[in-house]
């Protein structure tokens, strides 16, 4: 809508000509200018500039829907708009499963099970509908060379033995999963752009990026501090728009890093009240998600994989549908399994921190 040409807007002829004469060809060109500057460029009075802005805005504005219409659309599309993970407790907490059309992040220390989780999701999306799957293709962007077909088929055989005993099914399922291995951000960007067409033409039902952080750290080594955010911002916008546009779930994995002095923790009005002791509590062994706070704002659901007290946990750290809860899990031959479907409530700073036993990084 931002690039909507002015010529298609059916403006009154005198305005259309005026804008065209000054090379203001799209909605973006007209609306990016403050009123006064528009007046100067058009060499026209305030009423003319205002009329132009009002008409262009009305044309470029997306249509309005009531929330009820959105709900009815959701019901009509069926499936509740979710990809069930088959981990019952987790699915219930998320309102049915991984949401479609939104970005879901899986973050945790290395080796904890993020890729195992992604492999299972890929399988579930490829399975036929009568087995609970989405009966579609999956695009798996593997940046760390962790994807293993053998392991995925093993998960399939152990989780759905009845299904996989059928001849040729393993091959058919594996055939639905397209794996790309970009080696640089430029490569990744190119695959994403080509992805748009693929998604629409080939009935893709799930997009996985494993892992996002690995790609970004490649770029960080080259770029300057100010520039660092740019590739991430673009990628973020693009992933979100692909997700919403094609209504597929997008799952992205992220790494962790230790907390640094650069992380702000408090607002200015809080700092006055805190004494020195409390500030020190931040510099202990907790880890934080990589990719920064802007990324954290943009994802809709955050699943934190962490370990403490001798167990591993999947924690729903950010979700519009549920409070913060955690489930203990293990990784078996059949992939990730929950030890209990009873959720454990998580409150306060535990929600945002990521714990990893055996990997304490002390900044003391």
């Amino acid at each position, binding site marked *: 809508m931002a690039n909507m040409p002015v010529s298609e807007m059916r403006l009154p002829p005198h305005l259309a000509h005026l804008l065209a004469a000054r090379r203001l060809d799209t909605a973006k060109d007209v609306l990016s200018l403050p009123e006064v500057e528009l007046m100067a460029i058009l060499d026209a009075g305030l009423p003319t500039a205002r009329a132009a802005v009002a008409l262009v805005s009305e044309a470029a504005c997306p249509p309005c829907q009531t929330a009820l219409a959105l709900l009815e659309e959701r019901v009509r599309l069926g499936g509740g708009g979710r990809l069930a993970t088959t981990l019952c407790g987790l699915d219930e907490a998320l309102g049915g499963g991984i949401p479609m059309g939104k970005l879901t992040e899986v973050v945790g220390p290395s080796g904890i099970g993020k890729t195992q989780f992604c492999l299972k999701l890929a399988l579930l999306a490829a399975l036929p509908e009568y087995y609970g799957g989405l009966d579609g293709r999956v695009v798996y962007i593997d940046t760390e060379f962790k994807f293993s077909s053998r392991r995925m088929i093993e998960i399939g055989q152990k989780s759905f033995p009845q299904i996989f005993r059928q001849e040729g099914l393993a091959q058919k399922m594996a055939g639905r999963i397209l794996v790309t291995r970009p080696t640089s951000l430029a490569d990744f960007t190119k695959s994403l752009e080509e992805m748009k067409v693929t998604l629409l033409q080939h009935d893709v039902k799930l997009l996985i990026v494993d892992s996002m952080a690995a790609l970004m750290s490649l770029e960080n080594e080259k770029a300057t501090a100010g520039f660092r955010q740019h590739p991430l911002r673009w990628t973020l916008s693009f992933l979100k728009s692909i997700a919403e546009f094609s209504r597929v779930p997008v799952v992205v994995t992220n790494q962790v890093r230790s907390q640094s002095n650069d992380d702000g923790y408090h607002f200015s009005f809080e700092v006055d009240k805190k004494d020195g002791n409390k500030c020190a509590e931040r510099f202990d062994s907790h880890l934080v998600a990589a990719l920064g*706070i802007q990324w954290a704002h943009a994802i809709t659901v955050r699943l934190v994989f962490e370990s403490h007290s001798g167990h591993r946990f999947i924690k729903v750290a950010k979700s519009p549908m549920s409070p913060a809860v955690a489930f203990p899990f293990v990784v078996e031959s059949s992939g990730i399994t929950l030890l209990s479907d009873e959720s454990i409530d998580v409150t306060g700073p535990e929600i945002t921190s990521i714990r990893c036993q055996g990997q304490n990084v002390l900044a003391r």
Partner: protein
Amino acid sequence: MGEQSGAQNAWDMLSDEQSQKHTTTGSGDLNDILGGGIHCKEVTEIGGVPGVGKTQLGIQLAINVQIPVEYGGLGGKAVYIDTEGSFMVERVYQIAEGCIRDILEHFPQSHEKSSSGQKQLQPEHFLADIYYFRICSYTEQIAVINYLEKFLGEHKDVRIVVIDSVTFHFRQDFEDLALRTRVLSGLSLKLMKIAKTYNLAVVLLNQVTTKFTEGSFQLTLALGDSWSHSCTNRVILYWNGNERYACLDKSPSLPVASAPYAVTGKGIRDAVSSNHKRARVT
């Protein structure tokens, strides 16, 4: 004093201020520090870290503005401008159900009856009165804010406009920072004008970023310097130990104060530790 166009004397304004309506947030403690709730005719900015509950509060306000007048509400409709795709319609339904349940609890003599003009207490009716716009770029955001003037003229029963979040697209795609500041100033003036002209509340949800001040990195609301003077009120949502807190950081008439709140299955309510005995609807 003569009748200057647009000028009002302070005495008349006082009676205006006293009769000003507000929308409850769902939490009595939060309403208290806000002077009753979110005020009409004012622009309120609400910022906080990811996951603290900004969208939850935005949705709660879009529902609460619809509480019928006979139950102490404004009986209005809502415009929800979603720039990030955070609006999850099943959650809106849950929050509407929670609000209705509380109304019925406080006003047991009313059932779901309806007489002419009275809203039926069904979640679907609450959802039908939220006008939703999905915005995917800063151009669309500018377009919708401009278009609102016409839209609100045609829908005079709207009493709240929520923008979730107001800074997302401006942090991402704008190359010319000086131009960005000018465009944002223009937008904030427009929003203030809309609030006053149509007697509604404008609520702007904002993200946080880190800023280096006074020798350390601190959290602050995004686009702070170019934007911070644009809002009448500013509320910051943050974590204080295990509880969610809201701090009224800027207000023309109320002191800076903080209060706890909770996000429950029913929506925004008082924290468990609150002194308010029951969750208040109005």
